């Protein structure tokens, strides 16, 4: 997990962005609540509502820290989760060079970025699971695997408490799906680095 070295050694600043209706704010809320209620850290959430939440770029700014947070706005996120091209365009310039960018690869079809980035077809996977609305939860699972910004039990517990009654199990399944995909992404990177990207074909 990347941490800030100079100013706030234990503070993790995150922006989640996408378009209205994707559950971006909920994703931010789950991250913050997992950190504070589950992992017993400090967290803040700033949500951008307004016209943006009805289809344009919207975002949630989350800070997670070991000490009290004095200023809740995020200027240079170390984690950027982008679920729309507009959101990516708006915030990619702000993300730190040593940060981590997580994208829905179908919605943000980029081949290079200002920092290391990881893609997942979250919306497509959610559709396969039977509900497009779960893409945000898949994204959270993916983020958890790649950055370990929150713990798995905390994330799962918060998800169960935050999603509509009766959909808990499916949302946990979605989280696991994203998490597994994240682990698999890391494994794939290791394999690539070791010079074994493919299967041994005869």
């Amino acid at each position, binding site marked *: 997990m990347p941490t800030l070295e100079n100013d706030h050694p234990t503070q993790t600043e995150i922006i989640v962005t996408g378009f209205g209706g994707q559950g971006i704010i909920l994703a931010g809320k789950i991250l913050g609540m997992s950190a504070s209620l589950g992992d017993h850290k400090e967290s803040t959430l700033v949500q951008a509502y307004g016209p943006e939440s009805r289809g344009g770029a919207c975002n949630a700014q989350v800070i997670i820290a070991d000490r009290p947070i004095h200023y809740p706005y995020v200027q240079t996120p170390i984690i950027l989760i982008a679920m729309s091209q507009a959101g990516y365009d708006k915030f990619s310039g702000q993300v730190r060079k040593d940060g981590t960018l997580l994208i829905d690869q179908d919605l943000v079809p980029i081949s290079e970025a200002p920092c290391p980035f990881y*893609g*997942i077809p979250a919306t497509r996977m959610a559709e*396969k699971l039977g509900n497009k609305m779960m893409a945000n939860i898949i994204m959270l699972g993916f983020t958890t695997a790649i950055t370990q910004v929150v713990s798995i039990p905390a994330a799962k517990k918060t998800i169960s408490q935050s999603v509509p009654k009766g959909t808990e199990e499916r949302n946990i399944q979605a989280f696991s*799906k994203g998490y*597994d*995909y*994240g682990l*698999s*992404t890391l*494994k*794939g*990177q290791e*394999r*690539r680095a070791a010079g074994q*990207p*493919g*299967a*041994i*074909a*005869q």
Partner: protein
Amino acid sequence: MKHSSQTKIILFLCNWGAHAAYQTLQDELRAIPDQVHMIRIPCTGRIDRALLLKAFAMGADGVALVGCDPGTCRYGAGTTAAQRNTTDTGKILELLGLGKERVRFATVLPEESEQLLAFLHSFLDDLVRLGPSTIQQQPAVAELELAVDSDQRLQQIIAAHDIHACQDCGKCSSACPLALIGKPFSARGIATAVINGELHQESVRENVWSCLTCGLCYERCPSAVNFPAFIQELRHLYRQKQSQGDESHGGFLHSLMRSMASAELKPKRWQNLPEKLRIDQESTTLFYGGCAPYYDIFFGKHLDVQTEKILFDAIGLLNFFDVFPRLLDDERCCGHDLLCAGDKDHFQKIAALNGERLNNLGITTMITSCPECYQTFKSTYPAQGIELNFEVVHLYDFLEQEIDRSAVRFTPLDRRLTFQDSCRLARLENRAELPRQLLNRLQPASYEEMQDSGRAAICCGNSGWIGCDTYSKAMQVKRLEQVRATKADLLITACPKCQIHLKCAMEDPFRLDTPSVEMLDLTSVIAQTISWK
């Protein structure tokens, strides 16, 4: 254990040179070993691989072909053919765990009787050292006494398969690829004839042996008359009446499979396994290969097919997903083709041996890439009363599940694809969607289905190495025309046999205008194009 005096050597002796040397030995009352059973033949080249293997299937411990030096063959190419047949049969014996030393080719001149005698003695010594063949002699069909009166059995079969439910609607004939290609053949005709007691009429018999057991008629039949199963039972009845089926390739493949019904046989099945593949003999996941290596040896003579590669690609894919499977070195055939050919007796022996061996391995899962092994272990064994204590999984199921949850991608493949369904997987196991899920993940230049596809796909022309004839060839040509109509330049297959049969049609010297297309198994295409993101 057989005593050395019971060792059996079959000696095929060329009439022209070698036999004269043998006669000299006889005239001079020399000590030809009693174990040698000499058969005088016109030319060593005429003893094909089917005959060589049949000798072993019938109890020989060693087989020698003795003929003339290359260049002195009276018929030209006899010696070359004999050498090739000996080498191929040796390779098969090696895979069967018997050792290639058991089949030998030698040349002697008429005056070289001493050399011939020395050859026979040293062959005998070697065979005694090797011990008896582990193939149990296969009973001649005549010995298979009927347990029940065959008429009574026939009535049972008719009842069990509900043949009386046939409404004579003709839908089967309008679906049957053999009827459609113009063969005087009718599924419904077989049903009616059998009910009318005409089972043993020549035309009925011919039809029963010709059926592809492809299941297209079953698919359409409003009364759900299961022809493939019914046909297998009728073939079994014929066998009991000593009526052999029309086995392709001189019965080579059936001899091979029947040999595997011998309990003592310990094949050495995985001799060509590439070193870079990782296996783990402690694993609870077994990979079952099937008959591909035998096919590659046998068909290598005419057709350039390399079906064993499919298995290696399958293991490569398992490795890719961190599965290091167990392999059974003494893996036997699953028995599919024997049952298909009505040879229930040998099928049941093989199935019992397999059931016993596999159930004692302590495995939880068997993965196979062969649709026939899949069908046979998953459905046929339990239906025949052999329960397996592990799960049988098709490689495609494993791949689909893994790919679905993994960060993998497929390299674009600049080919135009179409797909030949396996009749076992698509129709008889009802899994036509399965390969398509994987095909959909590939990144080809284009993909187009053939006119008949999925559950309606036309068969590759033969099942169980039975009844291959000119109509089979015509059917294959029709299928290849369908491939051509899609403009595909790569035909993806899902069964090693589809490749063999279709290739056979493409290389038929009497049909030079048959459309030709490159073929690759789906497993291999995936192995070549998958990678971590």
